[in-house]
């Protein structure tokens, strides 16, 4: 096990005393198989217990340790030290307000996520005695990749349109809406369209594609959003040019 001395630059912000954030550098003896999160934990345990950051699972499942590592949105638990030089700069996720140090305010995302109703809305309620809602493997595969989203918000940190227009509902929330819209058991698309086909919905997306490039779970939000645009456009033309087609 080789050890390397890493200069870890951490963006610090204390809302009680600071008027703006500043970088603080820690010299961390890192093992080569460590991830950035290990380095931060080392700092917290040995050098400076005041550093604040979120983490939980250390295995790219919980989605809470998202941060900017050398300017790129990353899960700190999935950013391996050996992929970086001797100087690593960590900052809170871009496009989100800083609560303290590496902790961001995520209320905006949580609100938007809830607004798209990311849960099954069955076409018709049936009693348990009527049996299960069946789904074939083909139907499952249609939306399976979108179920892998862990709400880590890296896509929001990568999306310039979200940075420029904070009202934009954004990649993950619209992808999850798409995931349920595509689900053969679901009947809630009309309700979700009210939100995602609105002005601040999918139409703020200009297909930069950064969301899909940074996603740690290889979900493809950019694809979901383009599919939503195509479907919403077909809806619009059906509704306005062929009103008799409306159900």
């Amino acid at each position, binding site marked *: 096990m080789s050890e390397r001395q890493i200069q870890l630059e951490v963006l610090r912000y204390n809302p009680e005393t600071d008027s703006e954030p500043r970088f603080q550098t820690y010299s961390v003896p890192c093992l080569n198989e460590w991830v950035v999160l290990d380095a931060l934990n080392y700092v917290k345990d040995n050098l400076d217990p005041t550093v604040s950051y979120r983490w939980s699972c250390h295995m790219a499942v919980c989605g809470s340790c998202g941060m900017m590592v050398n300017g790129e949105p990353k899960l700190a638990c999935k950013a391996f030290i050996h992929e970086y030089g001797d100087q690593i700069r960590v900052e809170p996720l871009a496009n989100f307000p800083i609560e303290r140090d590496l902790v961001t305010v995520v209320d905006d995302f949580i609100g938007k996520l809830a607004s798209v109703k990311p849960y099954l809305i069955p076409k018709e309620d049936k009693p348990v005695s009527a049996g299960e809602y069946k789904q074939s493997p083909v139907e499952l595969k249609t939306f399976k990749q979108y179920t892998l989203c862990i709400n880590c918000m890296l896509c929001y940190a990568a999306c310039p349109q979200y940075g*420029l227009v904070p009202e934009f509902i954004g990649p993950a929330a619209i992808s999850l809406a798409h995931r349920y819209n595509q689900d053969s058991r679901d009947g809630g698309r009309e309700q979700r*369209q*009210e*939100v995602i086909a*609105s*002005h*601040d919905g999918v139409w703020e997306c200009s297909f930069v594609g950064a969301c899909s490039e940074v996603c740690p779970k290889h979900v493809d939000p950019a694809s979901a959003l383009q599919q939503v645009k195509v479907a*919403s456009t077909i*809806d*619009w033309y059906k509704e306005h040019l062929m009103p008799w087609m409306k159900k």
Partner: protein
Amino acid sequence: MTVAKSNKPIVWGPFAAGGTITAFVTPVLVLLTLFAALGFVPSLLTYENLHAFAANWLGKLVIFGIILLSLWHAAHRLRVTLHDFGIRADTWVAIAVYFIASLGTVATLFYLLRIS
């Protein structure tokens, strides 16, 4: 909670269709006019041949389709691009770019109808 659905699809439809059509045909069309610019006028671009092509109703349809869709593709993308460059007067930008596209569409129709 009822937020109005956006009317963006009206222009997004032509944007997407136009993006596809220009991706397929614009490079080769530019190649033909580049030959003409270099002094070697391709046979399609001679007056007789192009006139005959545009006089035919199918030819008219092809020309109109390509110009219409390219125009509305470029106009809509220009609107988004100006926003990306930091110009926030989106309503005015939209009016301007779609006006240019409408003008181009009407002009194309007008000229095509004059060729017979």
